[in-house]
């Protein structure tokens, strides 16, 4: 029950999952007109694609490439290498996310 105390009992908008409880739909925000395709920049899509492919391909290819060429069939080291490579992808993503935030802040200040 200790974990319950942190959560506020009042339901925020985020906690309501069903659409009916949100009340009558107001006018749509100007940038999200119904039926329009949302503007997603190409850099974001390419970034997400790159990380998706890296997450799938990098650990497996690291395992099979190092297995016979570097560790001479010692699959324990090859497995450890695969885990390390997966974590490198994660760290790269965290750094990328932090850098993007900095860039957003700079652009926001310029606009203001």
């Amino acid at each position: 029950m200790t974990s319950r105390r942190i959560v506020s009992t009042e339901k925020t908008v985020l906690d309501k999952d069903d659409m009916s409880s949100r009340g009558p739909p107001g006018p749509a925000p100007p940038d999200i007109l119904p039926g329009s395709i949302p503007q997603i920049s190409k850099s974001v899509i390419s970034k997400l694609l790159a990380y998706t492919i890296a997450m799938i391909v990098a650990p497996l290819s690291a395992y099979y490439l190092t297995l016979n060429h570097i560790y001479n069939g010692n699959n324990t080291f090859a497995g450890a290498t695969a885990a390390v490579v997966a974590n490198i992808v994660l760290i790269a993503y965290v750094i990328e996310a932090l850098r993007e935030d900095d860039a957003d802040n700079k652009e926001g200040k310029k606009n203001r």
Partner: protein
Amino acid sequence: MSEITEWQPVYAPFLGFSGIAAAMIFSSVGAAYGTAKAGISIAGVGTFKPELIMKSLISVIMAGIIAVYGLVIAVLIAGDMSPEKEYTLFAGIMHLAAGLSVGLAGAAAGYAIGTVGNAGARAFLQQPKVFVGKVLILIFAEVLGLYGLIVALILNTRKA
């Protein structure tokens, strides 16, 4: 084909294959829970501040790594299985232990990542300073799965 003895019983491969299945299934259960739980709050946060999606996705990536740990051990154990080679009872139980340790540790880590990712993304919407603490807690949750992987890798070196 080696002879069936008490040291190499017919059911020894069953234990080994159970280890492969446990490694993949339980770590995927953890990763799925983490991804789903964190994904719910990311969808909620994204409707208000779409620029926070990139940072909130970190918990989903971490949940994905849990499944990679299980995959590594499953591939590792599967490499030792062969119908021609002799397969001892020791090896079978060892592989079962390796699979269970990475699988159940991964399930635990995935549960933690999902819960922290869910609450963290919602808190991040209101207070950006939560981010560093959220990532730290996520890393500690992730390390639980890594411990399971390390134990499984060490177990796998104890081949008879």
